[in-house]
């Protein structure tokens, strides 16, 4: 309901005309876009285009975009790779990327293009599991293609969001993860998203993740920018967790100051399913992550965590909406930020407990450290409850490091700078400790430590392995 209101607002507040170039682009290149994509993806393109035209980019007066100026971000003229020129790189050779001791099934997506393993090296997946190019799978005549057409864009189209509409109208490829009923993928799946280009580039990446009844999968997305170019990525991820399914989704961003990331994640959880969404921003330029998660079946449970380390002029905005649509569901949310330099952070979290969603248990926490006077943090935890038998809590804090703790450490001989680093690492530790993928947790402790020491200044391919 609120989204419709928002949509109306948006139309009234049409902005600086940044939409025009994308409208022109689509009208001129529609055929080329479709030729290099698949029928399933093409089927929803025109509708998305109409929606995008109606919405326009949100101004900062639109509630869920008040902390990130999308109109300004969208104004520059980026190149797009619509006719799918292949970038001459074999990522499996170029990026030796691995989390030590974490035996993962490794895949690469370069810009928005899935890179298949050479067939001889292809990892063995359990029977029926598909990890492949979204375009390729939905182009084929396989029965799966029909299944997918029922899922693709289902969650996204119910959201009146201009960025999602833009992504839907322009996206040509991306990743599909499909885990059929009763199948458990033991090994974690690691997907490295690499931005690669010799010119400034806009990427519209699409991901569809389906875990059917009783299925289990753990996914780790690592985003990197391999070239020193201006990149703008729109990303839409749709996640379906069937009855009793378990999906872990870890998203780690390590890009650079010239990167703009606009990611919209939609999750739908059926009865007794469990989803963990953990989003980690270590290095970036401008990042906005939106998460819309619906607990649609009774007994569903989600953990939505995030940690942000930002300095210089970095901007990180996490915007979440968790909808308790059914009774007996649990949601836990913990976001922690450490902001240094002139960084700005924003967290807006809304928990919506629908009428009849009794016995809801919900906890939302946002804690932030600002290390300088110039760093800015905006925090907005919101609870909206229409059921009368629930347990909900929300809270947020913004503060500085404890002077008493700093002095205690210095008295023991730990220099001030080192003491600060230890305290900042300790602050973030609470989020990292909740990661259930132990080798990833260990690796992140190490990366976070390096990040605070300034030894992790820019992304060099995949820092995770070096």
């Amino acid at each position: 309901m609120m989204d419709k209101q928002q949509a109306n607002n948006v139309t009234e507040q049409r902005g600086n005309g940044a939409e025009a170039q994308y409208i022109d682009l689509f009208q001129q290149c529609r055929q080329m876009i479709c030729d290099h994509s698949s029928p399933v993806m093409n089927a929803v393109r025109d509708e998305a285009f109409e929606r995008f035209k109606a919405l326009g980019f949100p101004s900062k007066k639109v509630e869920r975009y008040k902390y990130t100026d999308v109109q300004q971000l969208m104004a520059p003229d980026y190149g797009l790779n619509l006719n799918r020129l292949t970038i001459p790189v074999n990522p499996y050779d170029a990026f030796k990327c691995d989390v030590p001791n974490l035996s993962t099934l490794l895949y690469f997506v370069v810009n928005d293009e899935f890179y298949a393993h050479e067939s001889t090296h292809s990892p063995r997946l359990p029977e029926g599991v598909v990890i492949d190019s979204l375009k390729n799978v939905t182009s084929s005549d396989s029965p799966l293609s029909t299944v997918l057409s029922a899922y693709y864009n289902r969650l996204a189209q119910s959201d009146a969001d201009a960025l999602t509409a833009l992504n839907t109208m322009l996206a040509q490829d991306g990743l599909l993860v499909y885990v059929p009923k009763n199948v458990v993928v033991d090994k974690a799946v690691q997907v490295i998203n690499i931005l690669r280009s010799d010119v400034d580039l806009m990427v519209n990446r699409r991901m569809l993740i389906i875990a059917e009844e009783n299925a289990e999968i753990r996914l780790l997305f690592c985003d990197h920018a391999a070239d020193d170019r201006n990149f703008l990525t729109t990303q839409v991820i749709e996640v379906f967790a069937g009855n009793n399914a378990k999906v872990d989704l870890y998203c780690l961003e390590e890009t650079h100051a010239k990167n703009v990331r606009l990611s919209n994640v939609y999750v739908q959880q059926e009865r007794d399913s469990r989803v963990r969404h953990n989003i980690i921003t270590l290095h970036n330029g401008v990042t906005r992550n939106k998460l819309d998660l619906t607990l649609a079946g009774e007994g569903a449970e989600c953990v939505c965590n995030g940690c942000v380390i930002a300095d210089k002029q970095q901007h990180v905005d996490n915007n979440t909406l968790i909808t308790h649509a059914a009774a007996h569901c649990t949601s836990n949310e913990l976001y922690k930020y450490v902001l240094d330099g002139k960084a700005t952070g924003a967290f807006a979290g809304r928990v919506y407990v629908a009428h009849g969603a009794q016995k809801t248990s919900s906890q939302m926490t946002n804690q932030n450290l600002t290390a300088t006077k110039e760093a800015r943090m905006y925090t907005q935890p919101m609870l909206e409850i229409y059921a009368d038998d629930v347990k909900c809590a929300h809270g947020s804090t913004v503060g500085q490091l404890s002077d008493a703790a700093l002095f205690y450490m210095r008295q023991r001989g730990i220099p001030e700078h080192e003491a600060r680093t230890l305290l900042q690492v300790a602050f973030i530790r609470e989020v990292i400790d909740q990661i259930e993928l132990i080798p990833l947790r260990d690796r992140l402790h190490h990366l976070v430590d390096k990040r605070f020491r300034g030894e992790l200044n820019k992304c060099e391919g995949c820092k995770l392995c070096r």
Partner: protein
Amino acid sequence: MLEVRNLHARIGEKEILKGINLTIKDGETHAIMGPNGSGKSTLSAVLVGNPVYEVTEGEVIFNGKDLLAMKPEDRAHEGLFLSFQYPIEIPGVPMSQFLKAAVNEKRKYQGLPELKANEFLKLMREKQKIVQLDNKLANRSVNEGFSGGEKKRNEIFQMAMLEPTLSILDETDSGLDVDAMRIVAEGVNMLKTPETSCIVITHYDRLLDMIRPDVVHVLYQGRIVKTAGPELAQEIQEKGYDWIKNGLASAAASIDEGSR
């Protein structure tokens, strides 16, 4: 070891130390006693360089060096240690990591190589025994969830790890039961060498029965008003501080009369 001359210090506009003079020789243990609010904790805080306090006058020479010119961490590296009256909890920083950083920073300062992980663990196990600290506590975050007694024992454990030349025990006995106090006192005595000195700040003489001071000072209204041998502690325990306060008042009165 330590030479404090005419030390004045304040917090905000309030002057708390009003001219402290104190000399501690190598190997000596000094007790500083005094009623609440007399400036005992301020003195220890100023010596270790707590930035909350501002020194307005005076100087402190520590082993021939100007102590007040040094950063708190360098004072620690030079061998100064404070056992805090209220040890700070630091959630998320494991005890072992905290101590490893402290020990290795000191070694760096002294030009020694860092301890290897196994050497450090061995040292920790060895020193834990001194205060009967459970190994589990050492694996937890610094002081987090420790009981009062555990926190104080943890302070002495850190002292054992860092091997200071001058230790200040700020009301280490407060809130301890007799057994815990015995463990703490035995730990302190075990660490004592003819080269190391100690300042024991306390309200009570119970601790001084176990850690025998060479000299006892009474601090009152920001000044040391009485200095004597260990028998002074006993006397204070029996008679309280009033006789000293009254003595000072009458002395002041007689000065007043004399000047008329």
